[in-house]
């Protein structure tokens, strides 16, 4: 059909599924059909299975390792020890201090000592048990305070036991105040408890290299460490992202990656490794336990005069991301409040406890339990409403942090608190009506421990602050390659990055950005691998910001080229053309060409390495513009507590969070729900119990995470106050809800019981006072 205009003049509606909408995730159909390939689902003909021998001792010298019987086992193809590591037997995110396989010493229970590959996983496990290791067991260093202050404690690493001490000094160190509250607080060791176990498949390649299929949070940082361990160049160690069953920080460090690669090189066969849940508890780092002392000085009308804090974070046996955790706990250590005089000392230390590193909200989570507990204590001391005392000290845009950094975008601390406070409260339980109880709605649930007697209700508030993206001068970037070409008669965009989708929905957001920037409906997300430049880590709430920024920038460059090409073809000025719904539109809103016609057979590809604005290291007094962006969330928790049995039921957990721009509103709310649930876990149930350096509960039977019965209904209020420095004005979303959830719940339990409750998770005996 021919028309005088020669092209379709229907401007069309905007392309559906762009930025600000909530299109469905592109991997969703595979996931609900059970066909999405997680790293634990990988399979190749003739592949072997690897298993790991781990130290039963938190501290010991290794006298000898005898692998004779293991090697002789039928079906065993390889038994490897530290002697078989071809490169440097050390790895680590920033400090390479952790052996791939222990040499002469083990520093934590669960440290890998030897590995076995066999034709059946059970054969490998049985052969592992035939390896004889002679240990000279030593007294473990398990007290993090001793690691800081006791010079007689054994040094676990060459540089001593203090991995990082970060002081923050602002204002007058000797400031005094009319009202002073003091508190000591502890945070237990939380586990990320992702559901998909550590797993991957290493495949030897014809060129002598390795192809590793792996669930990780950062392909390129894995690759960098593996190159060092294997003594191979980057072009020989190629990583592809497999399906990732959750991460939450636990996949930042290497787990089985190096072991599987060693096997593949050694046997010449594909080798799969997959941890059991028990092994997973030993196979990744955890959230740092914290011991914190806080002193808050305030005027009688509730204005903070000074905050002094000492925070000790137990990093366990190896560094992992401890230095960055220290930075967050220190720089965010007084919370989202204006304080003229600040003195914070934060220490990250080595002990023989399980290694600790990244978990959602790291550093900020621990500090928030301390400073928010203190704000409640101050409110109590002053007889003031807990929200009011927070309002009077609330940070706002233009205020100065304890590091001297000025908060240069929205900081709606007051508004978030007011919003959660204004939400309707759940109905009061009616204990007087004998038939009115529903066991499922009471603490203890269907255990039938109460029909309402001894149950007290409490309400608590908290607000938290988190830095988004990597800090302290880190060269934090992401790479995106975007291609636009005609496929099947449509203009189709392809987005290629190495950024890890771990469940959060980055793949969806990448599609949305490409749709919005290029005006095309069909966007293909190419699988992530190391064939393109680094995407940086899926952590610090940074991927939508940084990889999103890279995808946006690459799309803009592609768009410029398409418009230039159209301008040339049509003899029109390029700066008066724009892309809209697959069309080239001129300044007078006339469709002048279809994108497919401008492209023809050509594919337009642009690759962009994108950086957020620079950050800077902190000086000796902890001063400097160390952070890119701050993010805030507030919670209100309502709890019912059976004060006789110490059982807690969280009745309602409401949240208000500023996200700058809700790129995908449904996914944003999903992040807030999930993050809040992890905060609930830390508040009332989740702790890796470590005794003498030994883990006592490495299973989902003994390490409890919230079930659907534990998690209450949530009201979520999302604010969109744009950050002018960020792509689309967005603010990182993933971590803030985990931070304020925990202290809000504990505040509510205090409100119900009148108890101090200085440790999380709050356990029944903390409430009943029984041993």
């Amino acid at each position, binding site marked *: 059909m021919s028309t005088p205009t020669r092209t379709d003049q229907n401007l069309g509606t905007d392309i559906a599924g762009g930025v600000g909408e909530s299109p469905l995730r592109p991997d969703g159909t595979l996931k609900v059909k*059970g*066909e999405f390939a997680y790293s634990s689902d990988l399979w190749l003909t003739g592949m072997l299975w690897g298993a790991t021998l781990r130290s039963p001792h938190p501290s010991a010298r290794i006298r000898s390792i005898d692998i004779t019987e293991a090697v002789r086992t039928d079906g065993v193809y390889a038994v490897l020890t530290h002697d078989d590591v071809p490169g440097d037997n050390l790895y680590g995110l920033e400090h390479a201090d952790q052996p791939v396989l222990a040499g002469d010493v083990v520093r934590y229970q669960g440290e890998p000592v030897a590995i076995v590959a066999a034709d059946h996983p059970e054969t490998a496990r049985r052969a592992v048990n035939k390896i004889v290791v002679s240990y000279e067991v030593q007294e473990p260093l398990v007290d993090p305070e001793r690691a800081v202050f006791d010079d007689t404690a054994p040094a676990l690493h060459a540089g001593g036991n203090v991995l990082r001490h970060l002081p923050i000094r602002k204002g007058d160190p000797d400031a005094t105040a009319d009202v002073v509250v003091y508190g000591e607080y502890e945070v237990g060791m939380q586990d990320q408890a992702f559901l998909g176990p550590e797993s991957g498949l290493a495949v030897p390649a014809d060129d002598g290299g390795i192809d590793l299929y792996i669930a990780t949070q950062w392909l390129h940082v894995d690759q960098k460490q593996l190159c060092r361990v294997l003594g191979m160049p980057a072009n020989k160690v190629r990583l592809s992202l497999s399906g990732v069953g959750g991460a939450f920080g636990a996949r930042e460090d290497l787990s089985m990656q190096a072991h599987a690669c060693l096997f593949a090189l050694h046997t010449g066969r594909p080798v799969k490794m997959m941890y059991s849940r028990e092994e997973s508890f030993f196979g990744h780092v955890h959230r740092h336990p914290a011991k914190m002392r806080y002193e808050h000085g305030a005027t009688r009308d509730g204005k903070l005069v000074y905050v002094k804090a000492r925070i000790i974070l137990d990093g366990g046996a190896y560094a992992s991301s401890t230095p960055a955790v220290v930075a967050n706990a220190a720089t965010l250590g007084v919370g989202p409040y204006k304080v003229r005089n600040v003195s914070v000392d934060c220490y990250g230390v080595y002990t023989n406890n399980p290694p600790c590193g990244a978990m959602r909200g790291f550093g900020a989570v621990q500090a928030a339990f301390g400073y928010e507990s203190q704000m409640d204590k101050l409110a109590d001391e002053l007889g003031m409403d807990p929200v009011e005392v927070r309002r009077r000290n609330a940070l706002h845009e233009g205020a100065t942090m304890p590091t001297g950094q000025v908060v240069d975008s929205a900081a709606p601390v007051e508004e978030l608190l007011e919003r959660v406070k204004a939400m309707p409260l759940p109905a009061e339980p009616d204990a007087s009506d004998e038939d009115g109880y*529903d066991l499922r709605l009471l603490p203890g649930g269907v255990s039938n421990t109460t029909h309402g007697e001894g149950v007290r209700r409490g309400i608590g508030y908290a607000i938290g602050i988190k830095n988004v993206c990597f800090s302290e001068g880190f060269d934090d970037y992401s790479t995106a390659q975007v291609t636009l070409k005609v496929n099947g008669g449509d203009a189709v965009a392809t987005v290629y990055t190495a950024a890890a989708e771990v469940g959060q929905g980055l793949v969806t957001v990448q599609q949305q950005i490409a749709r919005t920037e290029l005006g095309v409906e069909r966007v293909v997300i190419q699988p992530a691998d190391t064939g393109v430049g680094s995407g940086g880590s899926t952590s610090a709430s940074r991927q939508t910001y940084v990889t999103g920024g890279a995808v946006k920038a690459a799309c803009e460059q592609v768009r410029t080229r398409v418009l230039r090409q159209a301008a040339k073809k049509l003899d029109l000025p390029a700066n008066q053309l724009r892309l809209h719904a697959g069309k080239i539109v001129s300044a007078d809103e006339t469709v002048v060409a279809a994108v497919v016609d401008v492209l023809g057979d050509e594919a337009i590809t642009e690759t962009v390495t994108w950086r957020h604005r620079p950050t800077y290291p902190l000086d000796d007094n902890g001063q400097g513009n160390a952070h890119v962006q701050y993010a805030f969330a507030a919670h209100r928790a309502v709890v019912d507590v059976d004060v006789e049995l110490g059982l807690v039921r969280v009745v309602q957990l409401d949240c208000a969070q500023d996200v700058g721009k809700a790129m995908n509103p449904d996914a944003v709310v999903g992040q807030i*729900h999930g993050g809040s649930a992890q905060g609930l876990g830390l508040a009332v149930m989740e702790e890796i119990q470590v005794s003498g350096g030994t883990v006592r509960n490495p299973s*989902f039977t003994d390490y409890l995470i919230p*079930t659907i019965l534990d998690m209450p209904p949530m009201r979520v209020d999302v604010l969109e106050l744009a950050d002018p420095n960020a792509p689309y004005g967005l603010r990182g979303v993933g971590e803030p809800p985990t931070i304020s959830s925990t202290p809000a719940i504990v505040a509510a339990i205090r409100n119900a019981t009148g108890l101090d409750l200085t440790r999380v998770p709050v356990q029944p005996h903390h409430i009943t006072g029984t041993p």
Partner: protein
Amino acid sequence: MKCTVNGQPQEIDDVWEGESLLYALRERMGLPGSKNACEQGECGSCTVYLDGTPVCACLVAAGQAQDRDVVTVEGLASDDELHPVQQAFLDAGAVQCGFCTPGLLVATHDLLEREPHPSDPEIREALAGNLCRCTGYEKILDAVRQAATTAAQAKAGLE
């Protein structure tokens, strides 16, 4: 060992007595949809039907499935059409990492077979054996409510 899985007869050799039904499904029959998150019956990620009853496949020995009928997440959709429960999980945003999803789909499918109009407490009770670490469960509740509504509407349409 012989059994029926998703309507298809399956026969596997050399089953070691310690192998679980989950291992047999995942590693021997090419059906990795059922997931291995705890392998001690706590997380529900491996939930499958065994003769119509939902079980944790990790706690069932492969040999116990002899001559029995197994349905996994891979058997919920018919041809290319998602089951309404699958569609509801997708539409409601109840899927993030998705590792718990296969087990939750089977458990929800079972709940709605038994109780087409579950109350929220009933949904929570029915799904209490399925751990999810990503979603905080709110959108899972939405998905179950949606699936129940869709099924009711479909039924009303038929009547």
